[in-house]
């Protein structure tokens, strides 16, 4: 597990560095069977992932409505994107959403993981509870939250009325709708972050804590001086997968707000969806998804610098 974990982390992190050389074999047919065995996967990933990525890039320089042939228009789509206030809003919303569901949620997840790393009797139960939303469909979860946020009969307003706080039309109010969507995303995503931290904590050497205790270090001191630095590789891994996840938020927007009210909760993905499948502007949608990808890549590199900074 330890080995597997490290390897997965490392390879995803440093895309493509070979962890271990597979055995070299000099056979009669020089591993022709290998090529045959990998061929279906290569064809599938090639057709449904590699070609589409390249096609997205190419289409982003065209005006294309599916019915007529694509027309080359150079960087016009990109020019339009950068002057489009809705897409700017969507980009900002995506960044705000990412901030709360990634670094903020990661801090909470790390604390929960450390708490669960104690020998508590109910440990397994807690872990199951925190992880449960992760395995259930986002659409189903969003449906439940839609009901919880319901202004007339919703659970949230009922709970608030007990303590005398007036209820809100959470999803219809431009000020509250984005926080409401973020809460659902954070609630659903905390489990996976916690889980990876729990796995990483198994590898932290107990003797470090014992040594620190002998030196009289407080629990908080030990957390910041030992736990946080030792979890750095895991933090990097969690950060990358969480950013990728957060940038692709779509299902809960579709169910909860449809991007509204007044674009308060629209996301980059939602704009791609609207351009492509509501307005049939395939070129524009492609350009928007290229911008999404580039921003995602930039965030990943920044994340890499922040979490790996002083290692290099």
């Amino acid at each position, binding site marked *: 597990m330890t080995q597997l974990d490290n390897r997965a982390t490392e390879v995803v992190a440093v895309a493509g560095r070979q962890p271990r050389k597979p055995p070299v074999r000099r056979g009669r047919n020089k591993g022709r069977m290998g090529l045959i065995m990998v061929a279906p996967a290569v064809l599938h990933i090639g057709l449904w992932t590699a070609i589409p*990525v390249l096609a997205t890039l190419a289409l982003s320089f065209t005006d294309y409505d599916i019915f007529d042939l694509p027309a080359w228009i150079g960087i016009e789509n990109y020019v339009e994107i950068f002057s489009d206030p809705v897409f700017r809003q969507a980009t900002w919303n995506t960044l705000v959403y990412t901030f709360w569901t990634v670094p903020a949620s990661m801090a909470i997840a790390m604390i929960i993981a450390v708490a669960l790393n104690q020998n508590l009797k109910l440990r397994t139960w807690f872990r199951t509870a925190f992880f449960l939303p992760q395995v259930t469909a986002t659409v189903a979860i969003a449906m439940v939250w839609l009901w919880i946020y319901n202004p007339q009969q919703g659970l949230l307003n009922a709970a608030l009325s007990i303590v005398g706080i007036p209820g809100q039309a959470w999803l219809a109010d431009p000020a509250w709708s984005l926080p409401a969507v973020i809460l659902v995303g954070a609630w659903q995503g905390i489990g*996976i972050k916690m889980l990876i931290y729990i796995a990483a904590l198994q590898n932290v050497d107990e003797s470090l804590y014992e040594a620190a205790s002998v030196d009289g270090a407080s629990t908080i001191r030990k957390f910041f001086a030992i736990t946080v630095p030792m979890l750095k590789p895991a933090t990097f891994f969690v950060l990358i997968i969480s950013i990728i996840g957060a940038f692709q938020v779509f299902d809960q927007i579709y169910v909860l707000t449809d991007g509204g009210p007044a674009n308060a909760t629209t996301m980059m993905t939602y704009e791609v969806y609207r351009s492509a499948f509501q307005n049939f502007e395939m070129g524009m949608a492609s350009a928007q998804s290229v911008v999404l990808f580039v921003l995602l890549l930039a965030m990943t590199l920044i994340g890499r610098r922040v979490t790996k900074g002083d290692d290099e």
Partner: protein
Amino acid sequence: MTANDLLTARDAAPDGPASGATAPPASPSTRARRKKWKGRLVLNIALSIGALTMILPFVWMVLTSLKSPAELAEFPPTFLPKVWEWSNYPEALRAAPFALYFRNSFIISASHTIITLVFASMAGYALARINFKGREFIFLGFVAMLMIPTYTKIVPQFLLVKFMPLFGGNDILGQGGFGWLNSWWALIIPGGLSATAIFLFRQFYLSLPRELEEAARLDGLGDFRIYAQIYTPLIKPALATVALLTFQESWNNFLWPLLVTTRDDLRVIQVGLAVFQQLDGTAWQYLMAGTTMATVPMVLLFLFCQKYFIQGFTNAGIK
């Protein structure tokens, strides 16, 4: 597989360092123990509140699905139903064809799982253990594909489906018809394999010892039989892990089925729920009954196969 054991090892272990350290019953240590006990109580309470927050929406979903419309209209809402309306479930099944959606989701998820187990494991094995020309290049290609977000490929994927030659009334150039739109092909083929699954399988095969292969080769087995008869039976836990992750992702997928199908008889459960909510948004008892039906299979699968899920998520992480 030792991989699972590590995660569960701590659950089984008795209160190790805590109880061991307090052996000599001197007075400072009793105080320390009491302090520790207090801290533990606070920790348990805090975690319980957290865990309840995670569970409550699910409980609320089930409770809502068992209330009458009149009761749902009340404010403040009742917590437990006054009358447990079990008939909501058969009525929900009549209000929308949830049983059909359920079946469709199952067919698609099962197909994706089978395709992934066969082809991703084959590819993963070849990349891990067979030395062939171009292997490094292909592996790097797969790794590059790991990071590609759905939205960077969704438009051309849709176009590929729409213009699939010789299907759905299309001519050889893919013109004139609907291609794979509104067909099982579109629902099953494009999502059948993922670079993540191939990558995971490669890792699992790499972790096995090489001696087995040498012994098998002395017995005259070829590459394919070594893969199928020697190595693959050894990674059964990994097969379970990848199978569960694939099934789960496929069952929960929403965007792709939403894009490629409009026919009611091809709808999957997640899209069916969203459509039902748009058409009949006020029938919360039926909607929550449908949501419960969409959620329960994954929850049960997770509860019974937790260790495989956990292993998979900690290794792959990518949802």
